């Protein structure tokens, strides 16, 4: 194939390069770096809000409590306080851990998740790269996190960590396949793995009810696939009821049992970005990406709203749904989700084939 790696739409690096008046290789490099820097920071800010503040507030709302409200308006400055607190803690390195794998694991997790965001169109022109294989890249990048989990689990020299690491692999194997198969059913509609194409395919109106136009988001076109995808996604990001790799009451904290201070923060950071990435992929595939009412420049707002909705959903699940046992979890993955996702794929293929 000789198709260009980049599509015709103007991407963020190009804009930055144009803005700075740079061109050629230098423009690509500087634009790319600055773009990546911008996107990473956008996500880190969101994670900072999500971790120390939103998570507490949401859980508190579900459990009839007040939660953080002492520092700053709505307790928002707890983010700063927590950052200082967490970073100033002692980094305890247990004896006999397998370094450098032990140190690298926590770094792999947030970076793999951040890497996935490179191909996500976030609206308002924030889109770092748009390769033809965008969707495959996003999944591939997100899956690298499992490597980090296994590294941490194995290198920690702790039995709980080992169990957590093993569970993480099992979880990944069992749920990655249904996740991707379900995503493939969307690709059947769009005929492209390119993220911008997938988003573009969802802009058409599906039907108009009483003057309200419902767009052709795949969540509306194929709600079954959407539900499957969200469930598989919960398992993929390791949230309730599928938080088997961590399972605090069973294996203490799974792979992260031995981590403290900065490395602990990195792991948490990675997990939150991972949830956001899961939400971002779901939003792109099923919820029209940055689409929403209002001018196109509001796209980023809509996009953020969608990934936060997914984040909120994971927290809701956490409060409401018990965790499955590890064997039941795998049963659901291999015997339930896999079968259903293949059925969905085949049916979608037939329907699309018949209609088209």
């Amino acid at each position, binding site marked *: 194939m000789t198709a260009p790696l980049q599509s015709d739409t103007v991407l963020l690096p190009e804009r930055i390069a144009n803005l700075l008046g740079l061109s050629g290789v230098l423009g690509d490099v500087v634009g790319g770096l600055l773009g990546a820097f911008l996107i990473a920071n956008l996500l880190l800010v969101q994670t900072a809000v999500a971790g120390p503040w939103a998570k507490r507030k949401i*859980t508190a709302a*579900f*459990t*009839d*409590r007040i939660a953080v409200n002492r520092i700053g308006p709505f307790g928002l400055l707890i983010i700063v306080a927590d950052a200082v607190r967490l970073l100033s803690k002692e980094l305890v390195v247990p004896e006999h851990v397998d370094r450098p794998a032990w140190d690298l694991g926590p770094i792999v997790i947030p970076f793999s998740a951040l890497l996935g965001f490179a191909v996500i169109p976030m609206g308002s022109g924030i889109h770092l790269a748009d390769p033809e294989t965008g969707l495959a890249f996003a999944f591939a990048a997100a899956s690298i996190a499992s490597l980090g989990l296994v590294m941490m689990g194995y290198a920690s020299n702790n*039995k*709980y960590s080992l*169990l957590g690491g093993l569970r993480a692999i099992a979880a990944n194997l069992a749920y990655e396949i249904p996740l991707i198969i379900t995503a493939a059913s969307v690709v059947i509609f769009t005929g492209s793995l390119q993220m911008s194409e997938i988003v573009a395919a969802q802009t058409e109106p599906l039907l108009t009810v009483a003057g309200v136009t419902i767009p052709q988001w795949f969540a509306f076109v194929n709600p079954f696939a959407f539900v499957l995808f969200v469930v598989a996604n919960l398992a993929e990001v390791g949230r*309730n*009821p599928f*938080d088997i790799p961590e*399972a*605090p*009451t*069973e*294996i*203490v904290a799974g792979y992260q049992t031995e981590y403290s201070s900065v490395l602990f923060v990195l792991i948490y950071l990675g997990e939150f970005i991972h949830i956001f990435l899961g939400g971002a992929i779901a939003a792109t595939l099923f919820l029209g990406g940055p689409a929403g009412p209002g001018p196109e420049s509001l796209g980023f707002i809509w996009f953020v709203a969608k990934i936060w909705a997914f984040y909120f959903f994971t927290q809701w699940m*956490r*409060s*409401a*749904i*018990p*965790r*499955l*046992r*590890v*064997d*039941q979890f795998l049963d659901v993955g291999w015997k339930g989700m896999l079968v259903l996702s293949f059925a969905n794929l085949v049916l979608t293929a037939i329907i699309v084939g018949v209609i088209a």
Partner: protein
Amino acid sequence: MSLEEPRDQGTDAVATKPTTGDEIADLLGDLVVSREEHVNAPGFVIRPDTVQETLSRLRDEAGFDHLSCVTAEEYEDRYESIYHLTSYDDRTREASVVVPAAKDDPRSQSADAVFRTADWHEREAYDLVGIDYEEHPDLKRILLPDTWQGHPMSLDYDQDRPQVVTLKEWENPLADDHRENEGDTMYLNIGPHHPATHGVLHVKTVLDGEQVADVEPDIGYLHRCEEQMCQTKTYRHQIMPYPDRWDYASSGLLNEWAYARAAEDLNDIEVPEYAQIIRTMGAELCRIASHMLAVGTFALDVYGDFTAIFMYAMRDREIVQNILEDLTGQRMMFNYFRLGGVVWDLPEPRDEFFEKIRDFLDDLPGTLEEYHDLISSNEILQVRTIDTGVLPPEVAKSYGATGPVARASGIDYDLRRDDPYGYYDELDWDVVVEDGCDNYSRLLCRMREVEESAKIIQQCVDLLEDWPEDERTIQSNVPRTLRPEDDTEIYRAVEAAKGELGIYIRADGTDKPGRFKIRSPCFSNLQTLAEMSQGEYIPDMIASLGSLDIVLGEVDR
């Protein structure tokens, strides 16, 4: 009166089974060396090498299928183990088997072959008193560390001897970690610091993959010498604050009642009816608080994260605690009972207090409905808990399981009905029995018991409201110093939140008990953990542990 029909198989059986001391003595024949009379039951002194024979004959032919407690003690001239036997079918039938052992070489046959529960009870007796139980499967210390020198409750024990063991002398704590290098199993220390052990419990687990091959609870981290402390306090006042601290998870009044019942029967103290009603009401409030905590923490174990149901349970428990605070002046460490009654009448204004309780009772059905929505009707929770942690009734009986743990295994056994005390037999309520024998049944059993307790409280409030003002006697006349006769022995139990909480007291003629033994329900219930979790997955083992609802303060005492 309980609404339940009197169990007919019970009446038939009792007619043929020996009940009086003479009948039992006839059954045992030559095994009995001499007779004793305890306040609660006839005592039979037997030779130390005939323990198994005696106990199995009593179990099989006389229906004494519940070894409630094993008490050990050292006298000036001998050691003595007392096996407190009773029957699951008829709690009022009791017998004490007294086994003296030689002073210079205290050996006694183990009862483990007859009653599995004797395993831990005899280990405790060995640990604290120093009697050597022969044929015991694994006689080692249970509450104290393995390096401990001497037996603290023996007469010649030197209290001042330092028991410091340096790390070098101590067996390498990590050595255990690498047991069975060749095998396929993995040894895992769950606890003493683990999110799901409900306190400082250490569960030595052998895993085969994710499955539990073997489990051995290691207890004693919270041992506070409660028995010995009670032996140094006076009956009249000083012991009463301590029962609150055995099962400290808000079932204080139930524990206080255990001591109050034993000490009142020992000293022939009558309790005014009015005080009995207040006691009954307070105790049931405690039971609700305790069960709320049990349900909440069990959900926490299964849900696995800091979840809504735990907080909702805590919130509702908080209401109960506020009521109890109004009544007793403390939220958990009540010290509200006194021998011969309670310390105060209900708080003034009484209407407001009754209103508060009634509001709580009115809201309770809605609250429980919410719990059912959140927990018991949740399919994932059902998948997790049904048919896991199975405890068949015969096994439960052999381990001396009581309380909700026994009742969820289909054993219809509740001391409030079977051995009535307080005001329970005047009230209308039911004993909750579930047949599932699994974690789910234990959960349901507790939730239904909350409803029954609410019924009891409701009736108590009605009674108290209409009680004539000049008959509100809260305490009977009790002498300032109590000196029960020398060598009077009594074993009395009440139905605490976790099961049968029994107190054995031997008076020695002073104003302090000569021997004070606590039969903790959690101690016996925890023993069943290995039985329930072998072959199951780790999460189920954790869930089973949660469903037992142990409080380590009571296990270790």
